[in-house]
C-alpha cells in the first residue's frame, strides 16, 4: 500500500504543479475559443489528450495498465455533460481548475468544491429514483473502449488517431494561412492548389512552431530558477500532465477528479456520523462494497491541491483571494451543477474529455460533446452584452 500511496502523492503533486504553471483550464480552452477564437489553451488540452492517448495505447498494448473506466453509453453523457459544461462555465473553473485554484488560495473555489459536494450528496440521495427514471431509459449499450474492441494494435490505433488529429489541425492552419491573402488567389486553379497544399503548408507551420517551442524550452533551461517562476506554455503543462497520467495509468487507473471527489463527500459525511455506506450509490457503486474509506485516487486528488499550492507559492501567485459578494451565486450554482452533472453524465472534463478520449471510451465521446455544448451555450449567455466570435 505504501508504494501506491507514494505514486498517488507524486502524480497528484505533478498534476497540481503543471496545471497551475500552465494555467491549464478546460473552461478557458473552450470558452475563450467560442468568445474570441483564442485557441492557446485549446491547443494545450488537445496536445495533452492526444499525447496521453498515444502513450496509453502503447502501455495497453504491452499490458502495462490497470484498467479502463468505461461507463455504459447513451444520452446520459449528453445530458449530464451539458449540465456539467454549463456549471463549469458559470463557476469559472472546471473540475481540475477548481482543484488547482483552491490550492492557489481562491476562497471562491473552496466554496465551489463545497457545493460540488452538496451536488454529489443530493445525487446520491436521488440515485434509486434516477436509476429507473433517468439512467435506464437513456442508456443504450455497454461501455467500451475502442482499444479493446478493434483488432488493430492499440499503439497503432492511437498513433493513427493522433496523426489524423494533427493533420486536420495542420489543414486548418494551412487554410487560414492561404485565405489570409486573397489577392494571391487569382484563378480557380490556384484556389484548388492552395486547398491541396493546405495540409503541407500547415504541417510546415506546425513544425516551425514546434521547433520554436523547443528552442524556447532550451532557452528557459539556461536559467531554470527564473523560468520556474514564470508562467509556463500550456504545451509544457501538456507534456508534464501526460507524464503523470502515464505513471498513473500503468500503476493505478485512468485520471479522474469528480469520482474521487464524490468518494471524499461520502467519506467526510461518514466521519460526521452519516451512514454513507447504506446509500446504494456510495456503498455499492463508488466504494464497490469495499467500505467507505480513503482510496488511492482520493489521496491523489488531494495532492493536486498541495502541488498547486507549492507551485503558486513559489511563483508569487499564491494569496488568499476573497470573492466579491456578487460572485457567490457562481460558486454555489456552478458547484451544484458540476456536482450533479458529473454524476448524471457520469464523469467531468478530466474523466471524459482528457482521460475518456485518451482511452477511446465510447461514453466519453458523447459526454465530451455534451460538455462542450454546455460551455458554448453558457459562454453566449455570459457574453450576451459584448458578443461572441463563434
Amino acid at each position, binding site marked *: 500500500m505504501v508504494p501506491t500511496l507514494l505514486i498517488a502523492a507524486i502524480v497528484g503533486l505533478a498534476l497540481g504543479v503543471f496545471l497551475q504553471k500552465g494555467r491549464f483550464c478546460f473552461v478557458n480552452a473552450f470558452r475563450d475559443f467560442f468568445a474570441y477564437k483564442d485557441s492557446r489553451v485549446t491547443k494545450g488540452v488537445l496536445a495533452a489528450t492526444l499525447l496521453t492517448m498515444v502513450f496509453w495505447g502503447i502501455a495497453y498494448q504491452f499490458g502495462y495498465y490497470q484498467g479502463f473506466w468505461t461507463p455504459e453509453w447513451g444520452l446520459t453523457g449528453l445530458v449530464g455533460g451539458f449540465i456539467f459544461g454549463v456549471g463549469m462555465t458559470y463557476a*469559472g473553473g472546471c473540475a481540475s481548475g477548481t482543484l488547482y485554484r483552491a490550492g492557489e488560495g481562491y476562497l471562491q473555489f473552496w466554496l465551489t468544491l463545497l457545493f460540488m459536494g452538496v451536488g454529489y450528496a443530493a445525487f446520491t440521495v436521488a440515485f434509486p429514483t434516477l436509476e429507473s427514471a433517468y439512467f435506464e431509459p437513456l442508456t443504450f449499450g455497454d461501455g467500451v473502449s475502442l482499444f479493446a474492441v478493434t483488432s488493430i494494435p492499440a499503439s497503432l490505433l492511437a498513433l493513427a488517431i493522433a496523426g489524423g488529429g494533427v493533420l486536420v489541425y495542420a489543414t486548418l*492552419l494551412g487554410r487560414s494561412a492561404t485565405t489570409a491573402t486573397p489577392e494571391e488567389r487569382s484563378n480557380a486553379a490556384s484556389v484548388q492548389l492552395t486547398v491541396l497544399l493546405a495540409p503541407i503548408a500547415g504541417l510546415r507551420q506546425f513544425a516551425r512552431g514546434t521547433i*520554436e517551442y523547443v528552442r524556447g524550452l532550451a532557452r528557459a533551461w539556461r536559467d531554470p530558477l527564473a523560468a520556474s517562476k514564470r508562467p509556463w506554455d500550456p504545451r509544457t503543462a501538456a507534456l508534464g500532465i501526460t507524464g503523470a497520467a502515464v505513471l498513473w495509468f500503468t500503476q493505478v487507473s485512468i485520471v479522474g477528479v469528480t469520482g474521487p471527489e464524490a468518494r471524499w463527500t461520502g467519506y467526510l459525511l461518514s466521519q460526521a456520523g452519516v451512514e454513507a455506506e447504506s446509500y446504494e450509490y456510495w456503498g455499492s457503486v463508488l466504494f464497490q462494497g469495499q467500505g467507505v474509506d480513503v482510496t488511492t485516487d482520493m489521496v491523489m486528488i488531494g495532492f493536486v491541491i498541495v502541488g498547486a499550492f507549492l507551485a503558486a507559492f513559489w511563483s508569487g501567485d499564491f494569496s488568499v483571494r476573497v470573492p466579491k459578494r456578487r460572485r457567490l451565486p457562481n460558486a454555489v450554482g456552478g458547484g451544484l451543477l458540476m456536482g450533479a452533472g458529473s454524476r448524471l453524465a457520469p464523469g467531468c472534463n478530466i474523466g471524459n474529455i482528457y482521460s475518456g478520449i485518451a482511452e477511446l471510451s465510447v461514453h466519453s465521446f458523447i459526454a465530451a460533446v455534451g460538455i462542450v455544448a454546455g460551455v458554448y451555450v453558457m459562454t453566449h449567455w455570459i457574453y450576451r452584452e459584448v458578443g461572441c466570435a463563434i
Partner: protein
Amino acid sequence: MPSIDDVTNAPDELSDDEADDLLEEADLVQDMMGEMCPYPQVEAKKGLKKLESGDLLVQETDHVPCTENVPQAVGDDADARVWRSGDATYRIYLRKR
C-alpha cells in the same frame, strides 16, 4: 492568422515606476479583485466601448489568468501591458486604439 507560435504571447511587462505613473493618467480604473474569468474580459470590452481612442483603461486583478486572457479578449481594440506586483496582484493596462 492563428498559429501555434502564438501560444505564449503574454503582453509586455511594466516596471513599478511606469505602472504607478500610468495609473495616475488612467481614464477608467476597474476593480476586478476577487473576480473570475470571464467577467474581467466582459468588463474590459464594455469599458473600452465607453472610452475614446488613446484613452487608458486599467484593471486591477488578483486572478493570474486574466493577465493573458483579458489582452487576448480585447484583441485589436487596445494595446495591452501588464504589471506584476510579485505578490499575486496584477494590473492590466489597455490603451484604446
